[in-house]
């Protein structure tokens, strides 16, 4: 399988799939290879065009459009193998459907959340957020938390990784309209500007460098140098166990306080170059059963794509954290993008430093990216 392996946490997650599938089929095995998450979307294209390319690849609902020429439609195999697609998260299935055909079987459906360091909040006298969190309160809290060498918010340079895009989703805005890139819509521009201003004007976070991976802000959070970070539930296990201080999660703040979740889910797909697609599909089905995705969710914190398995994920977690994810799952929308999304992401990382430093506005940056991505 060709997938992203950014760090040991990623490798442990993929191994958890193999281990869970082995419980039912001891002979089952899966060889893993791949680059970091940031490099994956560039390298998967060249890897699949080379000889001996792997049959199974990972994709996302957000990238299904972009990788459609690399993957095969699964509808016929779903039918012939009597797979009940309705058991998977509907938002994910919608996101993975390109031009009317399904391109991947999802293993998770993860609404992006706000992680906070309980100890730092308590020390700053800030009340822990929960299911209702307004951007006004968020700004006040971040200001209160920014002191003594600690930043309120850890900030990555990427678009999808936030904080701008999850904040826009929380307010019901997004970057795509009717299948086309819509970066300059008022809502998105305003929400991204809010995110830029948090750093450039309110100084509640350090401006990121373009080449920073998501691991850089995550390290800031884990080391206690930042009190909050917007990230996916797939980081739950790592962030809750490796952070200096206790960690809680809340919804991503919105203007009204009623947040819409940005569902970032991933899936297994079959490479168009695969010689034995039927065998690849059967292997995918072994690692996306409710039992397997539930077991991986329990072990690694990824929110299962199968609703009936969410209880396995919730089993050992605090009720408050579970309610946050369940609430966002109910209100959430999948991040569906366009075929040129990699260009948008790359350009945004390149330009976001200027936004977070205040030398360019969100509108200027989005206009440049929109023109470049034509």
């Amino acid at each position, binding site marked *: 399988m060709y997938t992203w392996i950014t760090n040991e946490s990623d490798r442990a997650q993929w191994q958890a799939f193999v281990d869970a599938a082995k419980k039912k089929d001891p002979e089952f095995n899966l060889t893993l290879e791949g680059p970091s998450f940031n490099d994956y979307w560039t390298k998967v*294209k060249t890897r699949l065009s080379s000889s001996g390319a792997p049959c199974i690849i990972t994709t996302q609902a957000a990238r299904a459009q972009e990788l459609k020429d690399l993957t095969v439609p699964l509808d016929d195999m779903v039918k012939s193998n009597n797979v009940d697609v309705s058991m998977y998260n509907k938002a994910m299935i919608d996101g993975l459907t390109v031009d009317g055909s399904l391109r991947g079987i999802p293993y998770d459906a993860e609404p992006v959340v706000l992680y906070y360091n309980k100890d730092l909040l308590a020390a700053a006298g800030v009340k822990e957020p929960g299911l209702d969190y307004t951007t006004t309160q968020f700004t006040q809290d971040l200001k209160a938390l920014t002191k003594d060498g600690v930043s309120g918010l850890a900030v990555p340079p990427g678009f999808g990784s936030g904080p701008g895009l999850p904040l826009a989703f929380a307010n019901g805005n997004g970057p795509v309209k009717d299948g086309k890139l819509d970066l300059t819509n008022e809502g998105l521009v305003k929400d991204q500007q809010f995110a830029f201003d948090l750093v450039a004007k309110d100084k509640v976070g350090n401006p990121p460098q373009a080449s920073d991976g998501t691991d850089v802000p995550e390290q800031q959070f884990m080391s206690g140098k930042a009190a909050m970070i917007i990230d996916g539930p797939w980081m739950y296990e790592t962030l809750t166990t490796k952070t200096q201080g206790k960690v809680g999660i809340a919804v991503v703040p919105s203007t009204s306080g009623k947040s819409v979740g940005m569902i970032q889910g991933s899936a297994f797909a079959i490479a168009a170059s695969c010689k034995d697609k039927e065998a690849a599909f059967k292997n995918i089905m072994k690692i996306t059963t409710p039992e397997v995705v539930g077991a991986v969710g329990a072990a690694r914190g990824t929110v299962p794509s199968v609703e009936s398995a969410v209880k396995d994920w919730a089993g050992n977690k605090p009720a408050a954290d579970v309610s946050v994810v369940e609430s966002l799952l109910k209100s959430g929308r999948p991040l569906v993008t366009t075929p040129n999304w990699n260009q948008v992401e790359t350009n945004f990382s390149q330009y976001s430093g200027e936004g977070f430093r205040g030398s360019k506005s969100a509108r200027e940056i989005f206009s440049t990216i929109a023109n470049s991505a034509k």
Partner: protein
Amino acid sequence: MTALPTLAVKNAKKPARVTGHGKLAAVYLAPGMLGFLIFIVVPLVASLVISLFDWPLFGAPKFVGLDNYVRMLSGDPVFWTVLGNTLFFAVCYTVLNLVLALALSTWLHSLGGWGPFFRVLFFIPVVTPMVANALVWRLMLTDDGVVNSFLANFGIHGPSWLSDSQLAMGSLIVMSVWQGIGYNIIVLGAGLNGISPNLLEAARIDGAGALQRFFRVVLPMLSPSLFFCTVMTIIGSFKVFTQPYLLTLGGPGESTNTIVLYLYRNGFSFDKLGYASALAWALFVIVMLITALQFSQQKRLVNYDN
């Protein structure tokens, strides 16, 4: 000096032996020529063909004629920005590299026994993988990295070396000079070793001071090595990729985006192989013209009289 004409005359009298030598030469040259054909000529021609197409990595290519070139020259402001960045990098990097390499190699030459030891020290970054070097420099130049921590000891609040558009390119140039200077130090050091001490001694006897000896004797005698270093350094500087890719990702904005990074992105990240090929040809033409200009001035600037 008389052996070669004699051999040529002998060979001219024995055409059968010439054929034998020719065949042997062809056999020896075949692997190299085959490699040149497969890895240079074929990709070169292929990229020229691809540049005339709208060619995604996957999916059907579409013939667009010269559209990619027209877009590059008149419809893509980023191309002119990255070209300007690349030229700026090439000029600063080449001048800094050559001036420092010349100064350091002259100093090392004067050290005598310790010279080779320091040459090895300066050469280590050249043979260290560029990726490793770039990552170390990235850690050093981050906002709370080693450089700013050092400055903080003196009460100086260090700037954002890689995130400030005024400083990012300068940081890349400094890192690149550190990485590449050892090569020129070795070449210029070899050139200095080749200068006859008798010439310098004669100049000294004639009353030439240290500066006069350097500018009137050393520099002219070193001009073949300097010419080689200049040509190679300029060509290398136009191909700069790893440093902006790993240290700044071309940002902030387009401030450190270079033509090869832009070319790579268009080809492999943005799925525009045709446009990337057109960019590659633009780079090829620019480097070829600059190199041709240098060679046209070779007789005027380079002293080959030993």
